[in-house]
């Protein structure tokens, strides 16, 4: 009896809750405000990229897409007050050094990734190696330059070799980690099926793991190449710079990034214009590899 009364009294005392959404409630307003701020933050974050791209196209494009584009792409860098000139040696130098770095780091990186991903993923060697590859990713890129300076440049002087090896040190970690991730995605069932047919581990890797993981591995490799092409700090005191086309791998070599760095500090408008042009060429090279990586890595349904 008393129980019944109490419930009834409670129901009468408590008003029906307002369950409909209240647009002007403080909570809803706060939520709307924060949503607006997030949109603003996202738009602000896109401004630098748009600004950089716009200026590259306007300032760099005027020379690159102008009448003397052949001279810009193949000519030698101008001296002091000289007009005209180009960035030919730098383009060639960048490509040569990135090539050296790729030849060294890609095979080693993929082999190491095979060890980490397929052969002995849980061994102590694999764990240490994986951890160190991650730590190397956090290393400042200039450290590769300092290292190669200490090992090679002190004895044999500035050269394309030194620059390429410094870039290889940087590419290695990217290739290893990306390739391992791609290899780890290969389903265990496919490997088991191959083992069941009597394949040796090497045959499983060559005939099942690598072909299946290839898109992922290629993506990683291409991103590493893109990164290396844009690097400048490790080249500063390994490849140094040169005003002429590369004729031997054992001499100082020009690169686009160092050309941009050198020319950006010069008081001559011609050089600064060329720095913008070189930036545009560099960004186009880097983005080309990036977009290629994305296209290859896209999951095919």
């Amino acid at each position, binding site marked *: 009896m008393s129980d019944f009364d109490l419930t009834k009294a409670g129901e009468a005392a408590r008003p029906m809750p307002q369950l409909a959404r209240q647009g002007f409630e403080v909570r809803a307003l706060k939520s709307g405000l924060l949503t607006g701020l997030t949109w603003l933050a996202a738009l602000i974050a*896109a401004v630098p990229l748009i600004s*950089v791209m716009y*200026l590259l196209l306007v300032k760099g494009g005027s020379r690159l897409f102008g009448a003397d584009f052949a001279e810009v792409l193949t000519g030698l860098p101008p001296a002091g007050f000289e007009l005209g000139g180009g960035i030919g040696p730098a383009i060639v130098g960048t490509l040569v050094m990135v090539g050296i770095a790729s030849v060294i780091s890609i095979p080693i990186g993929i082999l190491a990734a095979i*060890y980490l991903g397929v052969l002995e993923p849980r061994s102590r060697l694999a764990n240490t190696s994986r951890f160190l590859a991650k730590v190397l990713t956090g290393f*400042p890129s200039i450290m590769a330059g*300092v*290292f190669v300076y200490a090992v090679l440049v002190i004895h044999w002087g500035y050269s394309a070799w030194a620059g390429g090896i410094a870039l290889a040190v940087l590419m290695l970690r990217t290739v290893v980690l990306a390739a391992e991730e791609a290899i780890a995605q290969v389903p265990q069932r496919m490997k088991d099926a191959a083992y069941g047919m009597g394949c040796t581990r090497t045959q499983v890797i060559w005939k099942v793991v690598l072909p299946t993981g290839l898109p992922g591995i290629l993506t990683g490799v291409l991103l590493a190449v893109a990164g290396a092409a*844009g690097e400048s700090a490790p080249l500063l005191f390994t490849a140094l710079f040169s005003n002429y086309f590369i004729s031997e791998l054992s001499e100082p070599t020009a690169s686009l990034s160092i050309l941009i760095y050198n020319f950006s500090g010069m008081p001559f408008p011609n050089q600064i214009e060329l*720095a913008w042009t070189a930036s545009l060429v560099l960004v186009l090279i*880097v983005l080309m590899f990036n977009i290629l990586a994305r296209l290859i890595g896209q999951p095919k349904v």
Partner: protein
Amino acid sequence: MANLFASAGSASSVSGPPSGGDYAADSIFRGLAWLSAFLIIALTGYILWEILREAFPAMQAYGLGFITGTTWNVNAQQFGVLPEIWGTLYSSLLALFLGGSFGIAIAIFLTQDFLDHRVATVFRTIIEMLAAIPSVVFGLWGIFVLIPLLKPGAEWLHSQFGWFPLFSTDLAGPGMAPAALVLAIMILPTVAAISVDAFRRIPYKVKEAAYGMGTTRWEAILKVMVPTASSGLLAALVLGFGRALGETMALAMLIGNANQISLSLFSPANTLASLLASTFPEAGQLEVQALMYAALVLLVITFIVNVLGLAVQQYTIRKFEGKK
């Protein structure tokens, strides 16, 4: 009968046990893979060893005074990197404050259903492209776009609020503010990418539970999603900080390479990495040793920060994968 057995081993048959050649190829290939994995360890060790070896004479000569010293004078053979350590930490902290908050805001924007799936993909690609732009290009952009843009504002702030330590000098050209801003832009993609990962790891039912309790979208984000992702967000910030510490070229172009300690946002400063970049190419033997010591200091700082970040990240991954 004999014919049947003969064909089993011949080349015309599809099946057969691995030949001796297969076994040899297998061991050689596995040996190569082992060697490559070992090479990563050896390389890391070799890098440390070489830098230590080259820095050793300077370590002996200057000791800890190198870290507390404030002058870099080749002729007097006085080397100290306190201003550079200060500049490295100060610029990275400023960048972390800006780039970190924007990076996490963007991660929220991308993962918390603000955008259509396809638009979110496009936006993520834009942020990733930001990461692909080389450091020198940002440096160039900073010199010719950012510094002229900042100058009027900096002048006004200095003239109105000159008593405030952050604005105590004028922006003459390169300085801390443009350097930190560019640094913030450069670490934003790192922070955003790792934060997106952290939010993605949260099972969807967590958000559903929050909405079921009647939270608004932002109450769900701030009171449920962010605390749940907090360790991942921390990892994002620490790794972003690590990236900022080691960034070289853009800073060498924008920070002004001045050997001084100042709180002012508009005064030129220097960082360890840009000290290396700007003095190494023309350094003599003694200075190279001192620079190796400076490289070692930078290495130790970034190593500590990165291992810390990796540990937090690992902890986050375990936390969520353990619960599955």
